[in-house]
């Protein structure tokens, strides 16, 4: 593959970039909570120090798309066994997404639970590897959200709003902190082998923010990023010649138009593009990983190989300074995601098997490299599942209570937070809304969710809109 070289980029620019271009690259006058750049006066992805003390520098969000069942993974309910097949008192027909198919008849969990770690965190037998990391987890059993429908619930978890069009959490984080490695996208999305979740690219949209803050999907094969390399027929030498002439003319044009930072920024963007070519290829090159690491993530087994690869990629990306990595488990729809309408056991057997070892491997690998201390790992989906049966063997969507967990940067491991009623139907203790979760993530990254705002149509928007409280009990 032809590549540009640094020399090619700099060849006609004397000592390198002019002062303007350099300042743009470094973003020297960018500050946290900076007003929205309508013109590229500073590099939108230049690193910005967090305004408050930060425990985490980066985020890996393991998104179990489709709605994993809290009742079968982290929130055991013996009452469901007792009531198996019988009505439960808390059930309301209007809460069921599938209407008539979900009747008031409890379904016992097909799985066994045990308490793990010093803290005695309940984890089902579908997550044996993860169970060995119990003392790293802060398990929040009192999550709730505003919709029991995939598309709006996904939007809410990703963007804070159940409507389309708001910037996603990764966009907010990169807007607030920039990137520590401009040679890679600041916000990377790794999809499941089954394809994109519903809502597609809107799940990692920059909304009304500039395109710089958009999530960039990395492809599983070939060039990781679109347009990374020239098309066939454009050789290395040819590309180099083009860039040389382009650099010369752009510099002359800038010299004739002094004071135009936008022109300098565009010259610098070609430099970044050049660096991205080698950095992106290097980041996805797993050949350098020893067999022991590959095995840790389950790359040696078919069932875990795809998600394992993405978890390993996530580690390689955060290691290189990528700010936010979103890793999806589950794609497309229905059984290809965690959407266990028809057969909970069959569905969760598969998706747990695909994710258990890779997630545990990721946590352990991050830890052994000292990265877990300042990398926040989040696990969860867009909602939970009903304690009542859908059809005979499935569970329906449930928004009133579900479980998520966090680990790593600034999180108090071995914590159980919040509680649900005997059936896992309603939250009974310490309810945590999606904005609460988002506020906590931003807090860990050193940002006040009330002050991280982006002006759009004359209003200062927030990821948490008008609510959100940091979950103090989750903090180390």
């Amino acid at each position, binding site marked *: 593959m032809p590549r540009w070289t640094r020399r090619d980029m700099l060849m006609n620019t004397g000592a390198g970039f002019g002062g303007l271009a350099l300042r743009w690259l470094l973003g020297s006058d960018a500050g946290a909570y900076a007003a929205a750049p309508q013109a590229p006066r500073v590099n939108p992805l230049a690193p910005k120090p967090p305004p408050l003390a930060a425990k985490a520098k980066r985020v890996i969000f393991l998104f179990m798309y489709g709605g994993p069942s809290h009742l079968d993974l982290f929130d055991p309910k013996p009452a469901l066994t007792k009531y198996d097949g019988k009505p439960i008192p808390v059930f309301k027909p209007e809460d069921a997404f599938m209407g008539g198919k979900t009747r008031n008849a409890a379904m016992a969990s097909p799985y066994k639970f045990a308490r793990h770690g010093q803290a005695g965190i309940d984890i089902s037998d579908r997550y044996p590897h993860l169970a060995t990391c119990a003392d790293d987890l802060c398990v929040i059993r009192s999550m709730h959200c505003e919709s029991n429908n995939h598309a709006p619930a996904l939007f809410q978890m990703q963007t804070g709003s159940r409507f389309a069009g708001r910037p996603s959490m990764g966009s907010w984080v990169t807007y607030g902190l920039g990137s520590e490695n401009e040679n890679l996208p600041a916000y990377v999305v790794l999809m499941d082998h089954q394809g994109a979740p519903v809502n597609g690219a*809107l799940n990692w949209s920059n909304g009304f923010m500039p395109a710089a803050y958009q999530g960039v999907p990395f492809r599983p094969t070939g060039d990781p990023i679109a347009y990374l390399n020239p098309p066939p027929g454009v050789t290395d030498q040819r590309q180099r010649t083009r860039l040389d002439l382009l650099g010369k003319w752009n510099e002359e044009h800038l010299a004739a138009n002094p004071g135009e930072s936008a022109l300098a920024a565009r010259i610098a963007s070609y430099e970044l593009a050049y660096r991205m070519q080698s950095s992106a290829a290097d980041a996805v090159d797993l050949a350098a990983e020893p067999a022991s690491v590959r095995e840790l993530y389950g790359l040696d087994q078919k069932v875990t190989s795809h998600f394992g690869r993405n978890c390993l990629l996530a580690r390689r990306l955060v290691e290189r300074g990528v700010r936010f990595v979103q890793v999806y488990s589950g794609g497309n729809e229905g059984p290809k995601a965690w959407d266990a309408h028809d057969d909970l056991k069959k569905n969760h057997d598969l998706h747990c098997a695909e994710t258990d070892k890779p997630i545990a491997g990721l946590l352990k690998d991050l830890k052994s490299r000292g990265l877990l201390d300042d990398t926040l790992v989040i696990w969860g989906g867009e909602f939970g599942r009903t304690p009542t049966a859908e059809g005979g063997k499935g569970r329906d969507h449930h928004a009133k209570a579900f479980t998520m967990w966090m680990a790593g940067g600034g999180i108090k491991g071995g914590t159980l937070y919040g509680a649900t009623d005997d059936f896992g139907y309603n939250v009974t203790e310490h309810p945590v809304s999606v904005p609460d979760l988002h506020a906590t993530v931003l807090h860990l990254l050193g940002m006040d969710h009330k002050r991280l705002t982006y002006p759009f149509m004359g209003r200062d928007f927030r990821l948490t809109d008008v609510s959100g409280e940091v979950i103090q009990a989750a903090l180390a």
Partner: protein
Amino acid sequence: MAIACRWVAGVVLLAGTGGASAADSLFDEKVKPLLATHCVECHGGAKTKSGLDLTTRERTLKGAESGPVVVAGKPDESLLVHLIGEKGDPHMPPKGQLSEAETRVIRTWIEGLSEPPTVAAGKPAKSDHWAFQKPSTPKPPEGREWGRNGIDSFILARLDKAGLRPSAEADRATLVRRATFDLTGLPPTPEEVKAFVEDPSPDAYERVIDRLLASPGYGERWGRHWLDLARYADSGGFHNDLDRPSAWRYRDYVIKSFNADKPYGQFVREQLAGDEVDPASAEALTATGFGRNGPSNDDNVGKTALDREKYRLDELDDVISTTSAVFLGLTLGCARCHDHKYDPLPQADYYRFLAVFNSTVKKEIPLDADGRLAGITKQPKTKSTLMALVEDGPKARPTRLLWRGDVKNEGPAVEPGVPVMFSAVAPARFAAPASGAKTTGQRLALADWIAAPENPLTWRVLANRVWQYHFGRGIVASASNFGISGDRPTHPELLDWLASELVANGGKIKLLHRLIMTSATYRQSSRSNTEAAAVDPDVTLLWRMPKRRLEGEAVRDAVLAVAGTLNPKMGGPGIKPKLPAEMLVASQRNKWPAVTKEGPEHWRRSVYVYVKRQMLFPMLELFDAPGASQTCDRRPVSTLPTQALVLMNDEFMNDQAGRFADRLLREAGAGAPPAALAERALWLALGRAPAEGRVADAVRVMAAQSAAYRAAGKPAIDADRDALIDLCHVLLNTNEFLYVE
């Protein structure tokens, strides 16, 4: 969800402190102990959940982080009363239920508080905010020594105040390139540039403007601006991103309307109430697609009646938010759950607008093969339809205010009408339909109010938008928010003057373009200078013309135009050019064909590229085209390495560079010297005589490249062509190509 607005908080506090000593003592004796027992564990002292502190009277009246929980004198409108009621959601306190007697105490206390001078009651809200006042009728300042029309007098007066001087007029090649991109989104041809540069007649420039305004490219360019506002897309966005096979008819309606210079009032009426304006007109019905453009989730609404009603209201929320922002510069969408935080828009105003749209239904109206309305009796032979938002009859669906926007928490009934702050000058409640009417008439009544010459917002908002698209920034920078939280106008009198000119011209936008573009302000050079930049770095006072980067559509269209491949065909279903194969794999929901080789059917203007919300066309998206999930009043301008990658490496760019080279070779004839080819290439791409040294640079690089290709075994003719392609590709990447001076 927020509760109420800061603005009303002030009102309540003032009202509360003004009197009501009986209420004071009632609070201390009865209410406070009750709150202490049931609420203060979470709302006071150590914890103040949601920012609500119920330990003292002042704090209770101050309310939560998101706004007050008490509306003085109105227990039924007070959130506190609602939440402690049996249907409260979230019910407070979380466990248990206040007794009837306890609830009565709280109600009595609230009743005893002085009634606030508000809003929800339907009384006009007072505001001295500039945009809500009748526009002034300023005369351009006289006695100015610089300028060509009234605009310049206003601009110069402001520059004088800041101690700045306007810039000299740009050279003619710059002017014609600026005007051509501005009005058509395309570059001028070298012939057009030369004709203007050499035209000695005094009205040469005016004739260029008139020619451009009359060209079909005008509607494609300015229609695209409107499509940003109208959040136009060809798919639903949510979930499986369902296709909208007839959405393009709305896009074509917009382009045609701009080209026809349709009076703005008519444009407003058709889009909001086309079925009431002329139910027999396919054009008017198509215009109601404005209300259908928002994201939708039709394939995946929940199964219950409640889910469907929520979804219906969410869709109407998009219509209300978009309508108020686009036509009025009001962020009324912010008042769905609570009174507006900044503007005097009580929550009831939102529901007055909901009442206007509440009886509409989404309809696919059948068309015959010629795109005319199919007869009701005749079964249409084609599957062709248009997307409309219409009413089925004159019976209005009753509307109730919804506390916190929650469909399960109904408040008082609300009638359709204008925001109460305008009710002194407009009917707060629109007339009921006349007997025999086919619809409720409420949308037409709203449109008539919006389009009325005396509406204080409509014409300022429109004039400001037109100004913004010419200069990159509006006189009011927050173009869809003229409210208290919006930006102040940099030139308020100029804005009012432009608005009054628009009204005087019958709402014809082309006349406004002509006025703006023939001003000396618009004709200034874009060259910066250190002294002025130190005073006004953002050029808000327009001491020069700001340089602007082309939008994504203009980048792609200019590439096609320069390469000589642009297919001028207008209208019809959206086009689907080639996408990288990996992108198609990544989304299993798209129906985008795998194009192996692009042809003229793909090389149409970018306004016709199919807008798939979940798979936006990369070149447009990377250059900041909006995602169409909500109205977009101003695009950000990003500079990204991924933009450089697409311009360098996309097959489209390399393919078009090849066609650009072939065009040069074809037009120059056999044996044309490299210098002639290079000069023509520079002219085509940059629209001016080549700068010094450029032709020599190009010839030198082409000679070296050709030699290298020959050395690698290519025949001479191919080697020369490849070297020319390199030059063409470089030109399409230059800053001079991407920026308009």
